[in-house]
């Protein structure tokens, strides 16, 4: 009894420690964004100061935040929807009509995630240039969908595996063709899983920087490019950089906060049942 109490205290402390560690940079970024440029680089760092929104105003004057944000939304949603559109049938076929090669295919798909993206940058860049996809929203949507496809397929596959085959077979006996089977039975039964997969994909797309920095310049540039534009050209202005970053991550933070219940439920869907 006593030991389990100390254990619990330790685990609680550890949990809080990790959470604070993860949270601290975000906290510091928000704090910095509210300082003046001189305050931002002061040593020792200021903890007590008069907050000001001047950095935000400067940032908005120099770049149109809303345009980047809209691009981010469009590209993240588009990429996630496209990935799901391909992954739902792919995972269905792998989970319910497996062939001897299914396992291998799944592993191979995942293994593509271990390749450093920069390894395929040049071919993709050339392909995009020749196809006229550079700096287009559609181009990024395609890239993001492809980038997330392995993870999305894997997640859906594990959720689908939880559905007893006989339920789908009963549907087939009731006259369901493949699409009715997926639409009326599989999707409703795995909705928490599909939703959390979609949410995760959205977050991954939103945060992606490598491809967006390399394949867009202005027209289709999402918020990651917006942040980057504050880091290099005219030396480091920490307060403005922080303000830009805060503005860029705020939507996804709020979104993650609102959907955390759904995310956790989906990600532990198989484990608890």
């Amino acid at each position, binding site marked *: 009894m006593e030991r389990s109490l100390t254990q619990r205290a330790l685990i609680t402390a550890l949990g809080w420690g990790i959470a604070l560690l993860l949270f601290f940079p975000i906290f510091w970024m928000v704090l910095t964004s509210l300082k003046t440029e001189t305050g931002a680089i002061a040593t020792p760092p200021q903890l007590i100061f008069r907050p000001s929104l001047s950095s935000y105003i400067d940032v908005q004057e120099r770049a149109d935040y809303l345009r980047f944000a809209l691009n981010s939304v469009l590209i993240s949603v588009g990429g996630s929807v496209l990935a799901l559109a391909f992954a739902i049938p792919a995972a269905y076929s792998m989970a319910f009509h497996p062939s001897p090669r299914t396992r291998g295919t799944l592993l191979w798909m995942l293994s593509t995630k271990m390749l450093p993206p920069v390894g395929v940058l040049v071919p993709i860049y050339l392909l995009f240039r020749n196809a006229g996809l550079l700096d287009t929203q559609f181009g990024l949507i395609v890239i993001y969908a492809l980038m997330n496809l392995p993870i999305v397929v894997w997640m859906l596959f594990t959720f689908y595996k939880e559905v007893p085959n006989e339920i789908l077979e009963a549907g087939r006996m009731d006259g369901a063709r493949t699409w*009715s089977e997926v639409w009326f039975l599989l999707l409703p039964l795995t909705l928490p899983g599909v939703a959390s997969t979609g949410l995760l994909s959205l977050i991954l797309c939103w945060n992606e920087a490598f491809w967006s920095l390399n394949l867009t310049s202005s027209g289709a540039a999402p918020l990651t490019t917006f942040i980057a534009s504050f880091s290099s050209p005219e030396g480091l202005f920490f307060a403005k950089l922080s303000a830009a970053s805060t503005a860029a991550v705020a939507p996804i933070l709020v979104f993650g906060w609102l959907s955390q219940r759904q995310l956790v439920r989906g990600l532990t869907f198989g484990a608890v049942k």
Partner: protein
Amino acid sequence: MATLTLRGLRKSYGAVEAIKGIDLDVEDREFVVFVGPSGCGKSTLLRMIAGLEAITAGDLTIDGKRVNDVGPADRGLAMVFQSYALYPHMTVRQNMGFALRLARVPRAERDRKVEAAAAILQLGPYLDRTPKELSGGQRQRVAIGRSIVRNPKVFLFDEPLSNLDAALRGQMRIELARLHEELQATMIYVTHDQVEAMTMADKIVVLQAGRVEQVGTPLQLYHHPANLFVGGFIGSPRMNMLPGRIASSDAAGVTVELASGVRLKVPVEPGAAQPGDAVTLGIRPEALMARTDGELAGEVQLVERLGGLTLLHVGHGADLPLIVQTDGADASRARTPIRLAVDAAACHLFAANGITLPHLVTHRLVA
């Protein structure tokens, strides 16, 4: 209206052949039961008929039309699964109406049909519950109701009662038989339980290791098993099997000599069997009677009292104990000697290759 024919049906999983060539006719309105030990291929065969498993070789026809390449959605059959396989996210009403919804039947007609089926199965009060909120027996009835609503050509059942307790199983057995009467439908029913097979079937198909051992009415299988396997499988408690040799044969039957030296004359045709050939004598538990002048001597090892019936386990030398069925008033006690008389006319003789030597007279209940 539905007839089914199976011709040389085979199923292989890679190098393993699960179904090894099955020929069978299912008549319109017939209640056919596939029975056999676990793993003999009953479910596989049923699923091939359903269209859920591809047919490796052979022909399957429904109403004269070859359906090997027709998908399960288009065969017009309904199936009740062992696990019930209800749609967990739908209410009972939606579960039962799903097939009609897929077929774009208007809602009013759908509701009418669902309610009619629910009335037959006494599911009326549960129509708006989800499967989670039902007992095992109720779920079972929903699964059956789901198949009724569609008015299918053939009903397929895969061990539908095996998840129910004994009392409910008995009750559902009667309900299914009643349903068969009422719907005048063709039904194929898979079970490993030969009591279910005996009580419900018009026609039993005994399967073993992917082959048909015998097809016949319940009493045909009981009184005229085609071989040792069917003799041993059909009937509960099991038929007693004793090794012996043919001593002689004439027009009135074959005389068999048991290891103990006892001779019995069984009214069967010897066929190609010669005196001296090894045979197996099969005696049903009710063909043995405790009598002081009985031919067989032994010792009662165990008495199982079922109330109305009593089963005696009688040791006699090296073989398995003989099981004797006597009435509930039998006063035998364990560890006492006993003599058993054999109703030789009711015995069966199986040749060394397992094939039955045919009886000279057909049992009077077997037309």
